[in-house]
């Protein structure tokens, strides 16, 4: 056990799994840098997550590619059908638009449409979400896990801290289905205690970082930390909340959410994506159907406005739900 950043935790999970299983390999752009020029391996990925893996495993296991995301995703799918366990990096998750077909129409559907006779164990890594003050702009800030959650056949992982990131990455690599692993860019530098050894966090099991009686707060990714902060503030006002971090959005731990809502009677759902057809609506609808008779107050969705992520700092900050907004929503359903 030692303190590791979110970035280091993902790196360690990949390194340990690559060492344990020679079928695991990485494929993507600039995973190590320096190919076709000086010092291969000198960069370690656009976000530093793949640092050192080229040095340890070489070019056969860290496969550098041209800027051709459809070919990358297709190649991962094909290698997986043949028994490999590729980890394909998309860099910014926003780029999925150029290779969506390989994910939604190919890998997602293979197992089902091929009669359950084949598996496609691909992990796709996507850096996601806004960072307040980063100025990454409209095409480099989206957190598209809600989109991918819509597609049957995909599993979708959204770790909210370094401990989760490692355990979920290990589960993702060992999983026989295509897994979209969303890395929250704003969390790369965040750290916590992370076991040194290999461990799995099973899919479909939520975490509950805070327990309380009055309100259930379900939050995703970057919003988990903010929800915890809001809830901790509200303790002073005598409001106590469950905070639920689903960790995987597909499959999702409906039971824990429903149990909590049944006990608190109030639900807030928080995500940094815009509101339409999103996870906040998804969880709200779940409760409105299956925990209806326990509900004491309207279900509140706290999310981004229905706009692209703007560049200007003031707007970017306003786009991502703040601790205050979450706290206000909780107060609202308590009044």
């Amino acid at each position, binding site marked *: 056990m030692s303190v590791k950043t979110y970035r280091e935790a993902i790196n360690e999970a990949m390194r340990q799994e690559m060492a344990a299983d020679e079928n695991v390999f990485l494929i993507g752009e600039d995973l190590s840098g320096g190919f076709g020029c000086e010092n291969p391996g000198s960069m370690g990925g656009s976000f530093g997550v793949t640092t050192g893996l080229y040095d340890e495993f070489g070019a056969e296991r860290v496969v550098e590619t041209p800027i051709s995301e459809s*070919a*990358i995703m297709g190649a991962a*799918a*094909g290698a997986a059908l043949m028994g490999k366990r590729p980890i394909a990096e998309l860099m910014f998750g926003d780029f999925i638009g150029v290779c969506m077909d*390989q994910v939604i129409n190919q890998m997602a559907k293979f197992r089902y449409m*091929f009669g359950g006779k084949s598996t496609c164990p691909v992990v796709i890594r996507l850096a996601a979400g806004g960072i307040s003050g980063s100025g990454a702009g409209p095409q480099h800030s989206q957190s598209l896990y809600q989109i991918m959650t819509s597609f049957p056949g995909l599993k979708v992982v959204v770790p909210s801290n370094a401990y989760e990131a490692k355990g979920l990455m290990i589960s993702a690599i060992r999983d026989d289905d295509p897994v979209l692993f969303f890395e929250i860019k704003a969390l790369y530098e965040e750290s916590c205690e992370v076991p040194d050894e290999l461990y799995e966090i099973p899919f479909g099991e939520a975490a509950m970082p805070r327990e309380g009686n009055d309100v259930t707060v379900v939050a995703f990714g970057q919003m988990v930390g903010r929800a915890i902060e809001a809830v901790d503030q509200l303790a002073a006002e005598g409001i106590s909340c469950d905070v639920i971090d689903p960790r995987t959005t597909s499959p999702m731990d409906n039971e824990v959410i429903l149990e909590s809502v049944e006990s608190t009677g109030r639900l807030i759902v928080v995500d940094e994506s815009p509101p339409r057809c999103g996870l906040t609506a998804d969880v709200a609808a779940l409760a409105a159907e299956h925990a209806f008779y326990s509900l004491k107050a309207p279900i509140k969705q706290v999310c981004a406005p229905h706009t692209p992520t703007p560049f200007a700092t003031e707007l970017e900050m306003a786009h991502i739900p703040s601790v205050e907004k979450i706290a206000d929503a909780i107060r609202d359903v308590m009044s």
Partner: protein
Amino acid sequence: MATSKARLKKLGLDKAKLISAYRSMKTIREFEERINTEVNNGRLAGFYHLYSGQEANAAGVCEHLGEKDSIISTHRGHGHCIARGANVAEMMLEMWGSSDGLCKGRGGTMHVADVNKGILGANGIVGGGPPISVGAALSGKMNKDNSVHVSFSGDGSVNQGTVFEAMNLAVVLQVPALFVVEDNFYGEFTGRDYQTGCDDLRARTEAFGMPVKKVDGSDFFEVYETAGEMIEYCRSGKGPAGLILEAGRFHGHFTGDPEPYRPKGEVKYLRKEKDPLKKFAADMGKTDALSAKDLAQIDDEVMALIDEAVDAAIAGPRWEPSRINEDVYVSY
């Protein structure tokens, strides 16, 4: 090129191999013609992209493939799958959506697959296959198993960005991927010369950094010879290669296509002069490699196989709707 005994010898095509090739082509033909009949007589619903006329493409390539090799196919996929050894009875069950079908009836005509046999699937997305084939080839390269991985694409599909990306990636990674382009003159209802801006598709493909050859796809021996060369090139670790095969389709783009966009008499001409099975049979006559009796016997066996397959498919077990959720990891 006229086929001679000497040529057969040079190509290593002994009697067993010739029988295998002819059986493959004949099975494809009868499978497709029967589908057409069953659609016309109303016993089979849906739309089907038939491969009749292009049989030598699939057979000429797949006859070279071994256990570790793979293919990936297109929307017009029945022929490739049969040539690669898919179970024909199970394929027919699949056409009828039986739960005993090759894909348990969930995929149907455009998704016939048998990954364990190296058939990575027909594919309903134009250009969907080649990137996946590059990944299969990458795994072959990693395994150092001397395998070759073939993607089939149509002349229309080669302008899809995914296909270009796949070709470049294959060259960059130097993987054993063979890109077979089947030129049947049309993509849907549009002529190839309109869709592909350049005058020379072979040269454009070669410009990606791999050798590409083009031959007459109605001639099994031409295809077999050149495919053999290109596959050998890939197998020996030299990187990817391309192969363009020209052969017209005897049917419309799909069953029911009225084909007003085709010149009058084109299909008649193709059926008369460019029928891969007729040409093969004629070559057998000329070279005495297989007798008329040999061929007739295969014909009979294939007809019986198809008849049985159709009967079994029509009588095949059906799905219990409540089991729709199976084989997706999670159900709601």
